[in-house]
């Protein structure tokens, strides 16, 4: 529309007619030629797993026996894996093919939709490559998920015939149902040479540390269990949910069931397969009554999981999804993704031989802990186990961490549920700083007299190591170096390129101390004792903002908003950076980690940078700032706090809106309100002044 109108206007100028014709031509070109292509480009690329070949496996085709002693360091060829440091590596997926034996009988069932999903997930991921030459890891398209669905020998032969097989080196074999009756091996029975197994149901003998990946079985029922979840009162304390348990387990559990239900108010329910329909996984039976599998899971606090035919099956996934806390009593089991997931947070690990004492211990677990475990289990399910795509991506992420261990995620990243009020203090070392001094950073624009007075004042502070003046005026150069006060510490003037408030919080390389004393250029009333004492307090509380001018925020019930408050009150929640000590790290965080819209707003409006800093620190640490000494006036004895002047109502309104806006951006009010300040130990004590370390403290 707009462009067409523009064309009409152009028509008035005859000279421009040709141009308009040209533009119309260009437009039609866009409509006719480019747009359809854009749409095709935007469409999901067609599935790449579609070329299908048929291979005939000769009867005497060789197999490579599995090397049970493989480790990442001797069976895996790291040199194939590129030189990237961001955790990236490439996976090649063989084209889907049909494999038949010499009599043209297929060696296994059709590719399952689950395996198809796994391959699709890889193909759609950043790890995928079509070029086997640049691949680090190879994934076969022969569906090996369920050992009951393929012939072992022929499949091993088929794998060995893969064009890049190379004794299985760097190949990843996916398997979810290992072993077949009667011995149910705990790892897929294929002969795979040096291949890695991404498998389910390993025991601690068959799992090769640092090499195999213990993954999760996919359960198609789990999603609906997870969607119907509520943490309500659950009538059954412990349920078993497997229908294929060995009789010995059933017998001993039944006896526990009888014993306990008479003596205690805790119930244990041992379910059985339904005799009328053994094949339906959605129903189970208990004492001749048929129940919905889903209802049992949703109504039990704990789900007892015992060894089935295989060590790990879907019931584990189902109970996590349903919020029924799994009690895993399977000796030697290797849990899914155990190398990154701390299952102790969501699962109770028990010994299958000590079921008789289970109830006593489990009934001691307090209610809030149960809630926590249930929620954690569901979160783990949703984050790592809930779809084949997610399972596949978790597997590849673990592989990536093995290839690039320095870019591994920490325990917290894998195991802590994101929570709005949790915090990760980047200054977590429990220490009292030994720093011998601090760097003063003064923000200045053009008040040279005031600035020089301030420099002269603070330069006498024994702990001062350096002064950095951030000269934020682009129209006027800072005074010539000969005009600056002659002081004993080094003084550095930083000429900024734009008059932005965030310049005062830039992590300048010149700041070599741990602590920064941030100052406005008109803070002229601090005494040396106050400065020294403030620094001492910071050394004792190095992860807090420690400073002199304090403010608070209060909730206004009428407007349902926060109000910024500068009156002398009994509480504080902010310490302004016009005169405050803090760790230099916060400059880094302010400049590079803080939400950019806050930084942008501050720079656009030339206000609230101090409030932003308080929000940042409190949001990161969940701690309040510390106000030192009663000092409340900073500029001159006669001056009242400028923020208290009624003339500055506009200023106050802006600050109030900052508080509300920042709270909205963080999604919570991170500021903490406290009712204390910090004074020297002997403050106001009737005591000889010469014995007091900080005397000149206390004038307002």
């Amino acid at each position, binding site marked *: 529309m707009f462009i067409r109108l523009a064309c009409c206007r152009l028509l008035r100028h005859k000279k421009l007619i040709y141009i308009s014709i040209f533009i119309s031509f260009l437009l039609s070109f866009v409509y006719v030629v480019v747009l359809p292509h854009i749409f095709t480009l935007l469409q999901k690329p067609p599935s790449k797993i579609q070329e299908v070949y048929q291979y005939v496996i000769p009867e005497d085709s060789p197999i490579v026996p599995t090397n049970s002693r493989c480790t990442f360091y001797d069976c895996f060829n790291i040199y194939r894996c590129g030189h990237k440091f961001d955790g990236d590596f490439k996976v090649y997926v063989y084209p889907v093919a049909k494999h038949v034996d010499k009599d043209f009988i297929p060696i296994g069932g059709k590719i399952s939709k689950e395996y198809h999903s796994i391959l699709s997930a890889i193909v759609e991921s950043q790890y995928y490559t079509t070029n086997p030459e640049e691949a680090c890891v190879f994934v076969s398209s022969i569906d090996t998920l369920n050992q009951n669905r393929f012939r072992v020998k022929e499949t091993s032969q088929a794998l060995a015939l893969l064009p890049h097989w190379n004794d299985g080196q760097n190949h990843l074999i996916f398997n979810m149902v290992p072993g077949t009756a009667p011995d149910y091996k705990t790892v897929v029975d294929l002969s795979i040479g040096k291949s890695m197994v991404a498998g389910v149901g390993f025991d601690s003998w068959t799992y090769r540390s640092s090499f195999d990946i213990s993954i999760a079985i996919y359960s198609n029922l789990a999603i609906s269990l997870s969607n119907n979840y509520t943490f309500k009162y659950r009538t059954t304390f412990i349920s078993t949910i497997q229908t294929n348990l060995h009789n010995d387990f059933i017998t001993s559990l039944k006896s526990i069931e009888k014993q306990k239900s008479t003596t205690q108010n805790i119930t244990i329910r041992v379910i059985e397969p339904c005799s009328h329909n053994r094949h339906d996984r959605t129903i189970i039976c208990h004492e001749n009554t048929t129940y919905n599998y889903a209802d049992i899971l949703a109504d039990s606090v704990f789900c007892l999981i015992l060894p089935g035919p295989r060590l790990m099956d879907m019931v584990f996934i189902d109970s996590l999804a349903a919020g029924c806390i799994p009690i895993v009593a399977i000796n030697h089991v290797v849990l899914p993704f155990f190398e990154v997931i701390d299952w102790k947070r969501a699962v109770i690990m028990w010994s299958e031989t000590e079921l008789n004492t289970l109830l006593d211990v489990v009934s001691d677990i307090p209610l809030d802990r149960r809630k926590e475990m249930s929620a954690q289990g569901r979160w783990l399910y949703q984050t790592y186990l809930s779809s084949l795509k997610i399972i596949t991506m978790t597997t590849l992420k673990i592989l990536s961490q093995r290839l690039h261990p320095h870019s591994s995620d920490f325990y917290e990243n894998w195991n802590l549920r994101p929570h709005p009020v949790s915090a990760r203090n980047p200054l977590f070392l429990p220490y009292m700083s030994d*720093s011998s001094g601090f760097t003063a950073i003064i923000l200045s624009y053009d008040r040279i007299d005031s600035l020089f007075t301030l420099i002269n004042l603070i330069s006498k502070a024994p702990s001062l190591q350096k002064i950095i003046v951030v000269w934020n005026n682009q129209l006027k150069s800072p005074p010539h170096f000969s005009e600056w006060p002659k002081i004993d510490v080094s003084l550095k003037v930083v000429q900024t390129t734009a008059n932005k408030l965030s310049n005062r919080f830039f992590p300048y390389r010149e700041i070599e101390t741990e602590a920064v004393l941030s100052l406005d250029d008109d803070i002229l009333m601090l005494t040396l004792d106050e400065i020294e004492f403030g620094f001492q307090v910071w050394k004792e509380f190095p992860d807090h903002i420690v400073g002199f001018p304090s403010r608070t925020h209060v909730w206004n019930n009428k407007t349902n908003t926060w109000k910024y408050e500068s009156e002398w009150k009994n509480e504080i929640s902010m310490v302004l950076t016009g005169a405050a000590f803090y760790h230099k790290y916060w400059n880094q965080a302010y400049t590079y980690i803080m939400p950019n819209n806050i930084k942008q707003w501050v720079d656009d409006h030339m206000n609230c940078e101090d409030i932003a800093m308080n929000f940042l620190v409190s949001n990161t640490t969940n701690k309040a700032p510390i106000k030192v000494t009663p000092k409340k006036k900073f500029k001159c004895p006669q001056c009242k706090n400028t923020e208290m002047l009624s003339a500055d109502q506009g200023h106050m309104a802006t600050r109030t809106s900052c508080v509300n806006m920042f709270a909205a951006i963080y999604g919570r009010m991170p500021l903490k309100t406290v009712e204390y300040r910090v004074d020297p130990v002997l403050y106001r004590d009737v005591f000889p002044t010469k014995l007091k370390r900080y005397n000149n403290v206390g004038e307002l």
Partner: protein
Amino acid sequence: MCFLKTTRKPDTLLHLIYNANDVENLPSFMDDWHQSLEVGRPPAAQTYEARQQMPYQTSHRKTNKNCRMETCFDSSRCDKDFRVFVYPLSELETTCVFVIAIDTLDRDPLSPDYLRNIPVKMQRLRHWSGGRNHVIFNLYSGSWPDYNEDDLGFHTGDAILAKASMSVTNMRPGFDISFPLFHKKHPERGGEPGFVRSNTYPITKNYKLAFKGKRYVLGSGSETRNSIFHLHNGKDTIVVTTCKHGKNWKDAQDERCDVDNTLYEKYDYGSLLKNSTFCLVPRGRRLGSYRFLEALQAGCIPVLLSNNWALPFDEVIDWNKAVIWADERLLFQVPEVIHSISETKLFALRQQTQILWEQYFNTIEKIVFTTFEIIKERLPKLQSRDGIVWNTSPGALVSQHSYTNYLNFNLPFNYHLFGKQPSPNFTVVIFSQHNNLNTPLYRLVRNIAASKYLTQIVINSCSDNNGKSGYQTIAGIQILVSSGNGCRRFEPLPFIKTEAVLSLDDDVILTSDEIDFAFHVWQSFPDRIVGFPARSHYWDNGKDSWLYTSKWTNEYSIILTGAAFYHQYYNTLYTQWLSPLLIKTVEQSHNCEDILMNFLVSHVTRRPPIKVSQRKHYKEQANNGMPKSPWNDPDHFMQRQTCLNTFVVLFGYMPLLQSSVRFDPILFKDPVSNFRKKYKQIELVSN
């Protein structure tokens, strides 16, 4: 479309077009097989003896490579409690873990510390029974030239190996414990702090990466050590090696040895540790080396070149938070890898080196206790702590099972992490040494009862009263008098339901404003002791000992528990975790329990206590204007001095820390109307 490149004969390959568009029509991997007909395996054998008959149980004579906790460890011995038995003490029925008193640490036959007749000695052990429930500690195994990890020179059978330099693949998973390699002079307790005393950001060191050590011209480990010199650039990366080791190094020296040896002499190992951001930790003859712990202590982030090494206690420690793994096969990528790490991450890694060093490694005691804690956590009946507790300060050794009861959030240390706060109420525990309840107590109770945060008042009475506890009404307030606690001030009383405890002597004077204000401060610092009467300690060079002082000074390091808030958890820690020798010192002197509590809390948190408000005299004044005895009793005072020094010996160091700050209400003594002040009574308290 693209065709498969293949080297196979064309006749084995037939093309077939397969319609993959309707994926939904594909079968499920769970189809086509009668799952419901399958039956699970029977339970493992009930008893330890029966489990021994299982097929994978092989001979006891060598190390039983198949051991797992479920098969080789008899956890029924640990049902009641986790007890450790050290030979040759008398027999204990309830012993869970046995430690033999034979030095198995050094099993290198070439070493002077090698004990020759261990197999004979082992046979004499009364409870050995194939090594069941035994832990064997070992630092070195194997010898020149192959340094075989398994070669201990004796058979360990079913015993758990707590062994240094193990490889991930050689460890019996969940059974053996990877152990740190430490020097012979490693202190038993006390221990040195980490070197990082100033947590500067960003880390600015002279060198990015450093290494100074031997290279082996021949034999195990020589490949890696002989190649690392390639990393040396003389600028930000200092990697210097020497060929000099053993007696016969000259026989095998190569052409680089002279150059290397000269360069090697130019750098000092200690100063490299201090002045480098990263320290290279390559394998030596064995996978582990001393320099791992040395680098950790120095806050020099270890860069590991020791493929397959199981790092110490990796079952519970997330080493990714403190070290960088490099791959021996990719030596030349090391510089690139370490340059790719952000300053923010470096900052975190370095802090974590210090935390781990001080929590688990700086004394032999901690190393051994950590080993036992790991075994303890494996037993299903004894609850385990999650990775947050293990990998954050102050760590698992001071986070006791019995209190946490599966819950970690109620410990005093983690509130900020989870955005929680301690519950907003407290229990007063008045410690009374007298039989009759005296007059000041009435006033005290009235003042306490005025606090709206008070949940309950408990009097922990020294009188025996046949161990009976019951309610009494004092000044109209119901008070629980608990007797029969053996006059133990910090007994974890079951009546305490709050996290905060206000501990009081029975003759204390405090206003309700002071109590409320102190409680408010404590809520911000729930891991510290927050209270009124402050004391200090200092080192006297002349007397060569620590002195205790109650004089007014600019600092303090002790808050007396006669009037202080602290977390209930510290009662548990005091009673169950402190060495019995410390408790004995207190019980024999009938004194110093408050000093010991301060030692404990400062030791755990590495922070000083907090003094609140101006009040100094918190006791009823006697007629002469001096506080009543025993506080002015010189003997009492001397005793406290002695305690201080005894505690330092038993802790192995002085844990107390000085603070020079006092917490006051925001408007304290400000020239505004008293009506505007929240804590008015505090204004009137004089010193």
